[in-house]
């Protein structure tokens, strides 16, 4: 694929994902409302919110520094760049050997830019939110990275073209291993990933940095107008991308091969099917989790990551490794 097509693809992907992720936010709000026996906002509410924020006056605090205005733009830019490396039902646009590192780096960078923007705003509320976000940030990526690298390494061992690329999930997937031990390990890692997804998009237990009832929106306390709109959009895209990762690892099957399509229609069908799978994963990890759990304290959340998820990731990885070495059975 030459550079021009890749650029067009990225633009198309960006438009599609912005639409799909905002639509999911509408669906999520509707579902959570129904879980609490409310009617909820209309499905397109996030679009109205976005347009309203875009048309509002953006207030820059007196104590904010230059980075305050730059951060939302950077966050959105990074999330758009991230789309080029995200598996969307087909191999990522710029998939190469080892692109998983770029993916993790960009995904973490969005959180880091949020923190920088919050610190630049000069508000103590935003500072507290930023500290919490930072603590969560360093805790949540460890179990995820361990699990992700283990799975990629394991797939590498059964033979793929581009090792440690997110494109490998569409050649071989983790369920193909088939042995009971591998299945157990994969299930453990699936749980780890669902918990990671919830913490990445900060819902349920992990709604700690935003914590609107406690530290007044945390990192976003000072943002308004266009700047807030850009942050909201980049958050929505990040949510879609994180869920895409989980879908690509655990449920990579496309349907275009079964209905006998190829070329452009196959791509479209696969993207749509992928979107449905993303919505299903987000339903479990976001809507239900958000509706049935409250927030943890920041100390408890750190404990969940290091004492529950991290050991679970280690155990899952060890099981997968033992399965490969063939020590048992």
């Amino acid at each position, binding site marked *: 694929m030459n550079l021009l097509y890749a650029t067009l693809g990225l633009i198309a992907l960006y438009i599609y994902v912005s639409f799909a992720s905002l639509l999911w936010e509408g669906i999520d709000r509707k579902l959570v409302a*129904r*879980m*609490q*026996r*409310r*009617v*909820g906002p209309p499905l397109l509410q996030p679009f109205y919110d976005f347009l309203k924020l875009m048309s509002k006056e953006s207030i820059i605090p007196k104590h904010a520094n230059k980075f305050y205005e730059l951060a939302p733009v950077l966050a959105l830019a990074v999330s758009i760049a991230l789309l080029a490396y995200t598996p969307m039902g087909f191999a990522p646009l710029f998939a190469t050997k080892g692109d998983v590192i770029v993916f993790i780096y960009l995904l973490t960078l969005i959180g880091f830019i949020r923190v920088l923007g919050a610190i630049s705003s000069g508000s103590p509320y935003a500072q507290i939110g930023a500290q919490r976000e930072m603590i969560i940030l360093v805790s949540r990526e460890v179990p995820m990275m361990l699990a992700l690298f283990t799975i990629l390494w394991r797939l590498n061992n059964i033979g793929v073209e581009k090792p440690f690329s997110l494109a490998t999930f569409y050649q071989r997937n983790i369920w193909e291993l088939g042995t009971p031990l591998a299945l157990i390990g994969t299930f453990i890692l699936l749980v780890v990933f669902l918990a990671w997804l919830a913490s990445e998009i900060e819902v349920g237990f992990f709604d700690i940095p935003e914590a609107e009832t406690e530290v007044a929106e945390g990192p976003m306390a000072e943002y308004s107008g266009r700047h807030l709109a850009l942050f909201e959009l980049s958050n929505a895209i990040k949510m879609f991308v994180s869920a895409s990762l989980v879908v690509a690892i655990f449920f990579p099957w496309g349907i275009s091969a079964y209905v006998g399509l190829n070329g452009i229609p196959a791509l479209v069908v696969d993207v749509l099917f992928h979107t449905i799978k993303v919505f299903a994963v987000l339903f479990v990890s976001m809507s*239900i989790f958000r509706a*049935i759990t409250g927030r943890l304290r920041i100390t408890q959340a750190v404990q969940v990551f290091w004492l*529950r998820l991290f050991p679970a990731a280690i155990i899952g990885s060890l099981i997968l490794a033992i399965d490969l070495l063939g020590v048992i059975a």
Partner: protein
Amino acid sequence: MKIPPTLSTVLSNLFKKPATNMFPKTEPVPTPEGFRGKLVYDVDKCIGCKLCVTVCPAGVIEFVPEIKKVTFWLGRCVFCAQCVDVCPVNALEMSKEFLLATYDKYDDNLRWLKNEEIEEMIEAQKSK
């Protein structure tokens, strides 16, 4: 980690109808018996005894000596119904009306006996 007990409730709620009254599209929740809504004043019944002026805790009611009636501005009313209880001729009554929002605090809906009406009544008395 055990499964939170709310899970089953939440999932079964998903298949129930929302327990909401969609107000502007439907009628509001019916008011109960003895509901204290907007105060209604019957000018013809009033004998000008000033009891309501004495008893009102919010200073809503003002006596107009020329015509021996009262005039009031409901912007300050606290809906205690003391004036209704004390009025000897039942010239005051609480209605069921509660949608009283306006753009103007001196809205006609919130006042009884406007200045013109008072002047008219004074004229009428003179001509008698």
